[in-house]
């Protein structure tokens, strides 16, 4: 049994080792400028990963901005506000969103979301909010905005589910203390629950971020796959996970492959840190109670 347990450590060790090993070539060739370089040119052999970092960050940010209000709102409603018989079906439906595989989200994104964006949403945004500079250029449908929207839908379930968990972990006596002072239900939720659970909710949000950072297929299918840094959200982009997905099997030279692995290593390290931070925050509210198994 111990061996099985230790296998966990071994596996993580192997992951780190393999990633480090195969990215060494690229690291030696470019050093830190790998992460600041804007030029991704496999033909010339020059590799700069900044466009992918930009794409990952921006698409994840859009996703968070869209997802957090929705996810926390759903969690609050289902946990505190909704009539009891609705609770189980609603939470089941949210979990259902989590069960949909990334490639199916991508499929829907290409054939349903992108046309919708292209024909309805983007022209409207360009007309009313174009002055911000964020909604310029031809409305392709696919692009950064599409990626952000799809990611938002995908990370709502995990944020909701962890938020619910931390809200439920707030002891009953805290809720009663607020109610006994003569509070309305929303005031009880605000002061007695949300306030006590804030660290955990922050953790839930960061976990959502972690998920968004590593998401591959759906994003690849709707982001346009162009290694550029553009201000407009209508423009196509490229994320760290997407470039690996698209180019890994085509990468013929060692340096090319090594550059891609280095991106993978960077992605790995970032998601580990983000997830570790998130788990710590959640644990601080739930006191290390083993997390319920979610259909992640």
């Amino acid at each position: 049994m111990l061996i099985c347990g230790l296998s966990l450590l071994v596996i993580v060790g192997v992951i780190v080792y393999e990633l480090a090993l195969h990215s060494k070539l690229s690291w030696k060739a470019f050093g830190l400028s790998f992460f600041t370089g804007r030029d991704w040119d496999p033909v010339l052999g020059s590799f700069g990963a900044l466009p992918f970092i930009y794409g990952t960050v921006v698409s994840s940010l859009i996703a968070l901005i869209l997802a957090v209000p929705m996810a926390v709102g759903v969690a609050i409603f289902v946990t505190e506000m909704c009539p009891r018989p609705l609770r189980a079906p609603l939470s089941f439906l949210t979990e259902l969103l989590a069960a949909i595989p990334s490639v199916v989200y991508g499929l829907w994104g290409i054939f349903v979301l992108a046309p919708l964006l292209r024909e309805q949403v983007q022209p409207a945004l360009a007309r009313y909010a174009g002055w911000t500079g964020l909604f310029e250029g031809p409305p392709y449908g696919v692009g950064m905005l599409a990626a952000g929207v799809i990611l938002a839908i995908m990370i709502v379930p995990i944020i909701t589910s962890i938020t619910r968990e931390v809200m439920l972990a707030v002891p009953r006596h805290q809720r009663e203390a607020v109610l006994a002072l003569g509070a309305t239900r929303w005031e009880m939720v605000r002061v007695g629950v949300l306030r006590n659970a804030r660290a955990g909710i922050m953790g839930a949000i960061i976990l959502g971020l972690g998920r968004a950072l590593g998401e591959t297929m759906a994003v690849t299918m709707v982001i346009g796959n162009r290694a550029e840094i553009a201000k407009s959200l209508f423009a196509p982009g490229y994320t760290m996970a997407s470039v690996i997905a698209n180019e890994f099997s085509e990468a013929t030279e060692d340096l090319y492959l090594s550059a891609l692995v280095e991106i993978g290593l960077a992605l790995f390290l970032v998601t580990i840190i983000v997830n570790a931070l998130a788990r710590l925050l959640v644990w601080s509210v739930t006191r290390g109670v083993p997390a319920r198994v979610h259909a992640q």
Partner: protein
Amino acid sequence: MRNNGSYQSSRLTALRRRLSNSIATAISATMVALVLVPLLAIFGYLVIRGIGAVDWAFLTHTPKPVGEVGGGMANAIVGSGLILLIASSIGVPLGIGAGIYLAEYGRGQVASVLRFTADVLNGVPSIVMGIVAYSLVVLAQGHFSAFSGGVALGIMMIPTITRATEEVMLMVPNSVREAALGLGIARWRTTVSITLRTATAGVITGVMLAFARVAGETAPLLFTAFGNQFWNLDPNQPTAALPLQIFTYAISPFDEWHRQAWAGALVLIALIVGTVAVVRLVARRGVFQGAS
């Protein structure tokens, strides 16, 4: 404003508070509606676009050459099955073993480190798993294979199964263990034959959830199993997989392949949601049945 010397909300404030309450309820309810919209849209389109295309031919034939109408994803469905079988044979024993260790023998520092590691592993992006499986297996073997895909997915199953197993084993009351130990049964035997058996339903739940999760994964297979237009049951050869096929077809320029992509997606979703639904039914009864 004081009323009878006590601090009661003025009428205006009381109204504001009631209003806030109603608004908060309304906004959070709206959020629920907003979230349900894409859910309905996705399932709706899956059914509308997919159901027409899922026919017997789809389920039993291999793909036709590019551009031709007809053919199916039978090889992808079977291929997925093969890869998942390999994945399970790696992930299930290691996962359950680690879960048992954490529940029964893990104390203090070692256990905390392992639990943390399991969580870390869970958060690793699936594409990175693909890279690792590539460098471990594909490079060593010199070619793509179902086996390498199985390795990637198998490792991904471990954390979910570990946590589920640990949780369920911990729910078995100590009195059960003590009864067995009191009868003179050795510790490890108690764990396997008594405690584990009591927790079986919960363990199966964890396994099925892990299974459902990796069944839909595409990224790790992109450069491990790689895909195949033909039948393949040899674990050492590139193999088709349902999610991979859906991806390839979806990004292609052919309408016929788009149609089949929807069909494939519908089949995939049906399998996954079916598994999750069964798990929920089992979990409602089984876990507590097992632990009582």
